């Protein structure tokens, strides 16, 4: 990617919203974010069959249209590649369903700006059902990650994290949570958590925790990821091709 796609001067964080068939909520989310700050807002349209792209554009977002559905992580990574190409110093991922309260975005960005962390995860433990709590505890045990809201998609990534996650290495992940955190840890990046607000009305809904079949697949795939990485030491000396 060259620098021609640089849309706004670097310095400002970029807001990334992966969206698949979210025409009812994505417009409000974009408008809310634009009222809060002068950040560029990018909606990654994950091959929606509804009006998501048009609604997002009308609300003032830049839309990255995916030709095939890549899932939440594939869409997020598209946004991170965009952020990398544009030279943005930070990227915040926000769900398009209105679950994440944009008012918490500055809370996520603060530890990055202070140089305290490379990635900040927005934590809202109150949303967790009993099953989700169980899953979190299991993943913490399996991976050794010391993060409470391990599956939160409300995160801020600094420049180093953006570069790592935009790479080929992160392209075969199917879920945006544990596998992503494991890659970041392996690269020696610092993870931190910040308490955020989430909309309790929609925060309970999850793309994964709605059917037993989806949950089982998620648990199995993520377990394999976790087990396969046992013994990998955090290393920051390994290098990857940018693209």
């Amino acid at each position: 990617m060259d620098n021609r796609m640089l849309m706004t001067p670097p310095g400002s964080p970029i807001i990334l919203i992966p969206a698949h068939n979210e025409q009812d909520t994505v417009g409000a989310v974009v408008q809310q974010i634009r009222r809060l700050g002068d950040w560029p807002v990018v909606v990654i349209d994950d091959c929606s069959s509804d009006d998501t792209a048009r609604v997002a554009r009308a609300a003032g977002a830049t839309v990255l249209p995916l030709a095939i559905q890549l899932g939440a992580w594939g869409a997020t990574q598209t946004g991170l590649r965009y952020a990398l190409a544009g030279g943005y110093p930070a990227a915040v991922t926000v769900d398009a369903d209105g679950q994440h309260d944009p008012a918490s975005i500055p809370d996520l960005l603060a530890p990055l700006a202070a140089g305290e962390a490379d990635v900040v995860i927005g934590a809202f433990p109150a949303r967790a059902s009993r099953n989700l709590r169980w899953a979190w505890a299991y993943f913490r045990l399996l991976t050794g990650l010391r993060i409470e809201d391990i599956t939160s998609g409300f995160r801020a990534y600094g420049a180093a994290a953006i570069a790592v996650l935009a790479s080929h290495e992160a392209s075969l992940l199917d879920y945006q949570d544990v596998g992503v955190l494991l890659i970041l840890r392996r690269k020696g990046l610092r993870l931190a958590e910040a308490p955020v607000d989430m909309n309790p009305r929609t925060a309970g809904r999850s793309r994964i925790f709605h059917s037993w079949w989806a949950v089982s697949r998620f648990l199995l795939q993520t377990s394999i990821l976790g087990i396969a990485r046992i013994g990998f030491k955090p290393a920051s000396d390994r290098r990857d091709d940018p693209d």
Partner: protein
Amino acid sequence: MTYHITSALLGLTIAFGILFLVRRDHLHGPYAVWWLGVAVIAVLLGLFPHITDWLALRAGVGYPPILVIVLGFGLLLIKILTMDLERSRQERQIRRLAQRLALLEVQRPPETTPPDPPA
């Protein structure tokens, strides 16, 4: 003599099927090499089934046909494993390509996106 005919027919059918597909360009280069190898082995074992007996004797296998089955099964496993490796590589490439396409498309204003074909 009849089992010789059956075996030869089987071997030749497999080999000619593969040759047909390779000649029609249905198989990408590296795969064509593998399958031509399979065709050669199918012809050899089909025309000279005693090769199996000879091999089994050397390998200390008491029941020669099982040697063919075990070897065939092992090769199939290897083949399937490499297929999944290849599919994973392609999946990565497809995802990168779709993302690259989205990054390129965003540089054009929305009104220049190709219109739907006229009804």
